[in-house]
């Protein structure tokens, strides 16, 4: 709460049209605390009437009381970390919830009045086969949430999963072919069901793409609050400190808890690269007009149109924008790296 007050100073004259409460498991916090956080934000910032306000919830830690309180406080979007509708896969992932928790959570949320719900599902998980994945996608679509996010499991160093896969070799990741097939199958199934694939890993019913998600990829400013949160404001990118001690110290002194080592002021050319690669995350791609507005230069004065030939059928060009085809998304990093 204190941080909100400290940080708000620079944002007084800016409009806030998206608030996202996530990272970790905010549904563990009491609903009253969540409420207070939102009240403070509204006091300190210029939050628009129609702002998209999302909270991430874990199916096992949410309750009717919480959901009701969220609604009362103006939270209008729920993101449920389902991951899978297969108990075995959930177990492999080390999740505490079950398939039934996930169904129940979704149904309660609908019943209590949430209109805009996202379901996170994950593929490329050890011991997850094609059938299990298709079942998960089918069930997600069956619930008909407004938004579905699909992610390929990333095994990060230092995690329990990393140890199991790479050190002890107890688990084996699915073949990359399988992983890609899972991705494309899911997209196909979602498309048939009416979901628009508007961003590499997100699909939504028309009119329900996530404003929050699009901010990152549309070169918009955002403010991250809390431990280790990232921000982009005034042309500078930075993160809050990761250490709880430093964080608390800074707050006590009434200063912004920014990790000074993380502050990145990129050159114009680097920012162009960021504009381009983030743009490619979106189905609509890089908007040349917007590029010119931001940087005052023509996109093809900076980048070589030859890239379109180099990645034929993967990187597509259409009048006012450059975007990835579905095949291109498979190698998004490789293509994105070209713009750095």
């Amino acid at each position: 709460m204190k941080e909100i007050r400290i940080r708000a100073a620079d944002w007084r004259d800016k409009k806030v049209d998206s608030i996202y409460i996530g990272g970790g498991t905010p549904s563990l916090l009491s609903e009253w605390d969540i409420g207070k956080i939102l009240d403070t934000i509204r006091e300190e910032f210029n939050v628009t009437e129609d702002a998209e306000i999302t909270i991430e919830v874990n199916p096992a830690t949410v309750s009717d009381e919480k959901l009701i309180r969220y609604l009362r406080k103006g939270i209008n979007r729920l993101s449920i970390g389902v991951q899978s509708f297969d108990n075995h896969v959930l177990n492999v992932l080390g999740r505490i919830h079950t398939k039934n928790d996930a169904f129940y959570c979704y149904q309660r949320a609908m019943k209590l009045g949430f209109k805009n719900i996202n379901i996170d599902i994950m593929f490329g998980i050890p011991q997850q086969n094609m059938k299990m994945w298709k079942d998960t996608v089918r069930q997600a679509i069956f619930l008909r949430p407004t938004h579905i996010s699909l992610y390929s499991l990333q095994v990060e160093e230092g995690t329990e999963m990393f140890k199991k896969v790479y050190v002890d070799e107890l688990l084996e990741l699915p073949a990359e072919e399988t992983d890609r097939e899972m991705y494309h199958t899911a997209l196909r199934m979602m498309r048939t069901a009416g979901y628009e694939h508007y961003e590499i890993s997100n699909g939504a019913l028309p009119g329900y793409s996530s404003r929050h998600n699009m901010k990152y990829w549309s070169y918009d400013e955002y403010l991250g609050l809390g431990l280790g949160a990232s921000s982009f404001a005034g042309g500078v990118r930075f993160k809050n400190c990761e250490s709880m001690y430093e964080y608390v110290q800074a707050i006590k002194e009434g200063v912004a808890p920014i990790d000074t080592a993380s502050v990145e002021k990129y050159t114009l050319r680097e920012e162009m690269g960021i504009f381009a690669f983030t743009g490619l995350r979106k189905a609509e791609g890089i908007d040349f007009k917007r590029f010119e507005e931001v940087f005052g230069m023509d996109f093809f004065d900076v980048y070589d149109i030859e890239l379109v030939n180099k990645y034929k059928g993967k990187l597509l060009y259409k009048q006012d924008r450059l975007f990835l085809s579905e095949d291109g998304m498979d190698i998004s990093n490789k293509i994105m790296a070209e713009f750095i």
Partner: protein
Amino acid sequence: MKDYKKYIRNFSIIAHIDHGKSTLADRIIEKTGLVSEREMREQFLDNMDLERERGITIKLQTTRLVFKSQDGNEYIFNLIDTPGHVDFTYEVSRSLAACEGAVLVVDATQGVEAQTLANVYLAMNEDLEITPVLNKIDLPSARPDEIKQEIEDVIGVDAQDAPLVSAKEGIGIEELLEKIVTEIPAPEGDENDKLKALIFDSYYDNYKGVVIYTRIFDGTVKKGDMIQLMNTGKKYEVTEVGVYSPGPVETKSLRAGEVGYICASIKQVADARVGDTITIADDPTDEPLPGYKKVQPMVYCGIYPAEGEKYENVKDALEKLQVNDAAFHFEPETSTALGFGFRCGFLGLLHMEIIVERLEREFDLAVVTTSPSVIYKVVLTDGTVEMVQNPSNLPEQTLIDHIEEPMVKADIMVPKEYVGNIMEICQDRRGRMIHMEYITENRVNLHYDMPLNEVIYDFFDALKSKTRGYGSLDYEFTRYEPSKVVKLDILLNKDMVDAFSMIVHESKAYSRGRFVCSKLKEIIPMHQFEVPIQASIGQKVIARETVRAYRKDVIAKCYGGDISRKKKLLEKQKEGKKRMRQFGTVEVPQEAFTAVLKYDDNK
């Protein structure tokens, strides 16, 4: 002063790598008081960094020392160093020709090695007096009596009185020096006769031009003399003569029996060839010294600037190296895969490695080298002969009557327990055993007739690995022999990459093709499409592997909008790409070129 020659001893030290030649030379220099211990750098004679690191001597260093003998006289010792590797046999033979005797260093724990033997034979060819000495006598595993017997049996010189020394500990050095005085003959020759002097080494000095190391056999040479190099026919005016002790010291003249240097404004070492005879231009000696030959490169490979490296810089560096190395040749060539570069000729594989390493270290250049090749004699159907050293230049199959490949006589010396392993690797490389002899109860000398082509790839690595480092090799070109060799091409995504082409024997084509394909499969990163790797002879594909298409490219959440992190990841991905070469549509990491040449233990 008439009998000054009586007090000169010209000698070399011959030894196998690691048997302590350089350390012994250091001790001798130290004992003769030339350099104080404080000034003494470890291993005085090896002064190139690379030589120090590898423990081998590549360029010669010659030093004049003064030794006060127990007989009351002062002697001048000219210690003529010899290069210590199989690639430099000719240079060794010329250095030895400048001497009257040789100190043969044998490791008292290891005994006689193939290369020691090769050098001893060279010394014997020059009629040198051989003085054996046993080194590393301080080690508990030293077996002096056994090794003495071995020397007598194998080499046929009396070794019973051989000094027992430890160069490292400085034991027995004095005794050795006295031995040199009594056993090695003083030089002969007449200082008033017509000038006859041998060039046994040369190097390029930025100020003086080429500095010739010479041994005067007859006559006298001094500043101002007009000299002629008899084999090349070129004439020069002498600008300076002197001796090395250890730095250059100018003297009035060099006389018969002496060893020293001559400067004569010569532009590059290729003009003052090792083995050539120096005489006075208008009063020449009747005939040159025997044994001269123009050294010919035996192994060729392409050297190309690596990605981002300038062609001009590589060219300048190669020119600088050539000025100092008469055995190294290069000429421009182009490769469709690698662009503009150079075809370079070397004495052998080690010589090649040394040049490449010097380019990298001394000139800080990044280069790509292609598969080394020997020179093939291609006899065409119309009867003409072409010498081909670049696989890409091989004429069309239909025009070729037959191809001949260079053969070498390889002497391999190993402890007897490894004989089976050696036979295996030699057979595998088309070697024919000529004979095999037991030098001692435990050591065997195997003589093989082998194609040079098989020796240059990975033979040395295989030999070392299969004999736990105990095997030693010496080889010598013998002749050209008709052979069924074919050109093996490598295709990446259906495009031939000429830099990978090689000429191999028909019988090896399949295994070689498979090996290269599987190596490349390991090294070439995934692309956004499948990359077939094929090995082919003409139109016929004989091996194939496929690099699977790039799939997982991590579709992940960008947690909390940490875009800096994402940017760094992408930068890393891009950085990795820079070290690749683009061939048509396929990117190949530079290391691929060397990796396909490496000996594979698991093969």
